[in-house]
């Protein structure tokens, strides 16, 4: 909703963006050629109609009037011919509109699909630094304005342009003098159009801004509506809303006011132009002046004036059409450039060439690749000399003097070194902002480290293909995200080949089975709106089960049990212990009870590891951990 393009850009067409939109339409090249051809035919047909009306009076009716025994066959033939021309016009306009519908929707689909596919490749940083509403609005508002432009404005613009050219030529054929009058008056009219589109364009942008503002306010307040109720803050909320609503109303009133008045003003000015032409034409005809046309000279006739008058009306029509479309084109281009900006974002780079394969362990201890699931995994490591080595996936993770910063000016992690042996449980403890979650973001390469090295089974993780690296790790986050679909589908999310039995076993492990069975359709209950019917604790249990189904050798649990009460946690603990068995696990938890039984606990402070050791060692040390443990120190 935040189409906050500076208002001063109004009135300038962004040709770069236009070119790009057309490049998406290029796969419809053949249809496009046909469409343009059809548009030309249909506009020529309609102009031909106007010209015919001119000749009707002069060439048919007037001679017939003079004839005492009028014969209508000539007129009949001409009318039949006209009928054919009209029919061709109707058919071609049907054809082009029909294909334009397909082209517009196809182009939009192409853009939309590319945008979504592209979005999937963007680094996590993109989603952390852009508001979700902003990303969403590209799929909704921006695509919508673009649809209107391609579907309505583009054909109308082509049509109007064609009509204008044909009419212009036709006018020149009729009379050069009168055409000059039309040109002068159109130039004057265009000044008014320019003023009107400028004003309405300015307010249309204001309208988008105020709507975005309103949208943001509503979203925040409705989200906190329960707090509003508890504090009886309704009246205040209403007043603030009203203020924004009125700002929107005023912008819309002006935007539509100027845009609406375009048509009546153009039409009235058209009448005045009409009168002037009639006067001049009449004067020319009466004074018997010669009529200059591009085909030669002749005398000004009544028929000439009549048909010229009709033509001049057809000339004004497309000009008002174009003016009316102008604003929507500008708005659509602003939307399109935002869409293209997303498409042009730099994707997550992946130079990894080490892949994860199914493997078989030979009796002699060597590892060979297997073509089916064996339960054993190995890193397939091709070397520059063409040889390939296989390393068994064990889950050993080493951080070697790692530095990291999200922004160059503020270092988040400083000189982190740690060894996690396969099957070990490593815990991170520390205040908010100490860098706990950041470490896990680095291990699965959501972000890349600035200095140092991270090794996985002895391989630098930069060499491992990201998809394979992530496949070997399960992650359970504090903020649980579920997807619309059944509980079973959600459980199977990380491992689409898992059987129902495996999923149910995992749910039992996570202590989620009982409440799932109480849902209306058990495992087939459809979760909607991010599983909004479930409590936060239940969502966390599903998320743990989901990670268990994926069965990765390394697991990251980031505050995974924070919303589960301690009693339930104690119940889950047994399952969790079983889940962690034989896996390398990184645990971030607020409750020290969750991390106590870890093999190593790292106490982080301002991006540095200040203490490390087992629970007993750290207690004995009587350092920061001890203070945390005894509650002498605040943990946030």
């Amino acid at each position, binding site marked *: 909703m935040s189409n906050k393009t500076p208002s001063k850009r109004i009135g300038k067409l962004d040709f770069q963006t236009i070119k790009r939109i057309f490049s998406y339409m290029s796969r419809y090249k053949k249809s496009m050629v046909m469409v343009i051809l059809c548009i030309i035919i249909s506009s020529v047909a309609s102009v031909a109609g106007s010209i015919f009306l001119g000749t009707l009076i002069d060439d048919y009716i007037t001679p017939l009037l003079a004839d005492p025994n009028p014969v209508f066959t000539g007129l009949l033939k001409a009318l039949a011919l006209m009928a054919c021309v009209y029919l061709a016009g109707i058919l071609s306009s049907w054809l082009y509109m029909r294909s334009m519908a397909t082209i517009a929707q196809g182009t939009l689909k192409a853009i939309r699909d590319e945008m979504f596919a592209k979005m999937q490749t963007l680094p996590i940083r993109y989603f952390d630094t852009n508001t979700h509403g902003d990303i969403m609005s590209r799929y909704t508002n921006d695509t919508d304005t673009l649809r209107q432009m391609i579907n309505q404005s583009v054909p109308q613009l082509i049509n109007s342009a064609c009509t204008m050219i044909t009419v212009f030529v036709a006018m020149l054929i009729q009379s050069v003098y009168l055409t000059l009058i039309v040109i002068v008056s159109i130039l004057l009219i265009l000044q008014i159009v320019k003023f009107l589109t400028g004003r309405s364009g300015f307010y249309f942008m204001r309208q988008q801004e105020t709507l975005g503002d309103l949208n943001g306010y509503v979203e925040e307040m409705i989200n906190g509506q329960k707090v509003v109720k508890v504090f009886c803050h309704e009246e205040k909320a209403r007043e603030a809303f009203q203020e924004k609503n009125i700002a929107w109303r005023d912008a819309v*009133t002006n935007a539509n006011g100027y845009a609406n008045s375009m048509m009546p003003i153009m039409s009235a000015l058209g009448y005045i132009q009409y009168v002037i032409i009639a006067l001049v034409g009449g004067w020319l005809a009466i004074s018997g002046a010669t009529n200059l046309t591009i085909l030669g000279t002749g005398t000004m006739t009544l028929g000439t004036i009549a048909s010229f008058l009709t033509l001049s009306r057809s000339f004004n029509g497309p000009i008002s059409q174009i003016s009316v479309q102008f604003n929507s084109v500008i708005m659509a281009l602003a939307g399109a450039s935002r869409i293209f900006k997303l498409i042009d974002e730099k994707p997550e780079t992946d130079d990894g060439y080490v892949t994860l394969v199914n493997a078989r362990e030979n009796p002699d201890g060597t590892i060979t690749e297997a073509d089916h699931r064996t339960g054993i995994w190995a890193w397939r490591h091709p070397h520059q000399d063409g040889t390939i080595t296989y390393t068994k996936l064990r889950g050993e993770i080493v951080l070697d003097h790692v530095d990291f910063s999200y922004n160059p000016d503020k270092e988040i992690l400083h000189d982190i070194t740690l060894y996690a042996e396969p099957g070990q449980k490593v815990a991170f403890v520390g205040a908010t902002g100490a860098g706990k979650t950041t470490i896990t973001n680095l291990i699965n390469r959501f972000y890349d480290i600035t200095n140092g090295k991270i090794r996985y089974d002895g391989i630098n993780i930069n060499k491992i293909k990201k998809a394979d690296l992530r496949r070997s790790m399960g992650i359970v986050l504090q903020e649980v995200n579920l997807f619309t679909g059944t509980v079973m589908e959600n459980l199977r999310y990380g491992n689409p080949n898992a059987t129902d039995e495996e999923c149910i076993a995992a749910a039992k492990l996570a202590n989620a089975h009982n409440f799932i069975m109480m849902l209306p359709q058990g495992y087939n209950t459809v979760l909607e709106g991010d599983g909004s019917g479930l409590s936060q604790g239940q969502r966390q249990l599903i998320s743990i089960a989901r990670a268990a189904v994926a069965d990765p050798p390394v697991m990251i649990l980031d505050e995974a049990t924070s919303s589960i009460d301690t009693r339930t946690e104690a119940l889950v603990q047994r399952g969790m212990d079983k889940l962690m068995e034989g896996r390398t696990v990184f645990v971030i938890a607020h409750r020290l009870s969750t991390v106590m039984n870890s093999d190593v606990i790292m106490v982080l402070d301002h991006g540095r590891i200040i203490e490390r050791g087992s629970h007993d060692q750290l207690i004995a040390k009587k350092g920061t951990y001890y203070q945390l443990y005894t509650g002498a120190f605040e943990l946030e």
Partner: protein
Amino acid sequence: MIKTLAKSIREYKKYALITILCSMIEVVFEIVIPLFMSQLIDRGIEAGNMNTVLKLGVLLVFFAIMQLITGFLSARIAAKSSAGFASNLRQDMYDNVQTFAFSNIDKFSTSSIVTRLTTDVTNVQMAYQMLTRMAIRSPAMLIFAMIACFGIDAGISMIFLAVLPVLAVGLYFIINKVHPLFTGVFKTYDKLNNVVQENVRGMRVVKSFNQQEHEIDKFDAISEKIYMDFSKAERIMSLTSPLMQFCMYACTILISWLGAKAIVASGNSTALGLTTGQLTSLFSYATQILMSLMMLSMVFSMITIARSSAERISELLNEKTDIRDPADPVMEVRDGSIVFDHVDFAYSSKADKKVISDANISIRSGETIGIIGGTGSAKSSFVQLIPRLYDVTGGSVSVGGVDVRQYDLEVLRNSVAMVLQKNELFSGTISDNLRWGNENATDEEIREACRLACADEFIEAMPDGYDTHIEQGGTNVSGGQKQRLCIARALLKKPKILILDDSTSAVDTKTDAFIQQSFSQYIPDTTKIIIAQRISSVQHADRIIVLDDGKIADVGSHQELVERSPIYREVYESQQKGGSEDE
């Protein structure tokens, strides 16, 4: 539905009427102008009379200027009237949402309320503007133009009567065919947006499970469906214009033929019949008639599109709050005593399972009560009955000796401060947020409340102190800080009853204990109800309620419960195992 929406027109009714009036006048000019044009050709140019040409020309220019003025006015006023109506409509919706009880809020999702307040209102606004500008104007135009045509030549004008039904049937067929398609398309759009939203939010999950391909496939399938349905609908819609052209061209040719014959028959004399000038006017009117029909069909199609939006809006407008002030409300809460008398509660009257069943307890004013229970044991539901955020389904809850349903809601809620589990701070400074509790609080009072909630230290450590700006959703303060701010905000209400729903979970034990201590020291007369997951937060309470599956399993002091309540003991031990001073 229309009645519901029309209520919001209010002060903009006169603008709507002026719009209609102006557009009627505009129509008159648009009809008169072609008449004079034909006169100008017939009596002026044809007769070679420049004087007449000049006279009629001046008259025509005058008409055109009049039309310009009325057209301009009607355009501006139509914009004012529709924007005003739309903003009223939006305000009414928002106001109604403000009256909603929690149960009403639960019914609508945030995003659905937001869509109704934005996109749906815009759709209705556009349709309404179209309606005021065209709905009267087009039929009027049609009728006037028809009268004018029949005035010129009734015989030839019969052509229109023949063509009109063809057009009407054609348009009806198209709209009928297209409407269900569009409704379907919009539903699919909702699905598409849902997928995008889930992905944007859950990108970490998608990436860590490597499900990008799966998500792209899911998206493409929906995207493909939109493409198919939308282009199908548009293809049918694309018949409209050719249909119009067909009618118009058919009229032109028929008028040409019949007109030529009539002119020849009359010898181009006004007295005897049709003239060439009149023929030109006939063509003009033919265009006008068909254009007004086109406009009408556009009005229809816009209304069909706006119809689903209007339905969604009236759904929100017609939602009546479940909790209302009683007729003769009690305006004062005597003290902070609470009585639960055989309380039953269910979120939906249809639900067969009660969330709370037969809860009985009497709490003295000033008492400190702890509540302990597992996930899903209805702890939050239990306390939300006290400020009447939900109504009981059986039994009664009394505060200060009076049933909560007899109080004025504002009076009751001002006496009962509640810190919700899902805390929300709003964008604005820290003081702004705290003043939610009491608008007129002095700086001293604010500092006092923050001291009690142990929030003063970290606030004063911030660069801007109490003027520090809080981001939307309070993302720039930590969980524990947010909780303490919310407690301070509630304290500023100087409530008779203070309810903390798991509000110190992110605060360390020491600070937690300090907050508890200052409560008993500084607000001894306030009844305090504390829901907590850790025993340490409640063990010093006068009494602790153990909730299990919506029932009060036991009530007693920490010591008593450790001895006799197996559930309590289990919780206690699970935390003991994790260290006596867990967290």
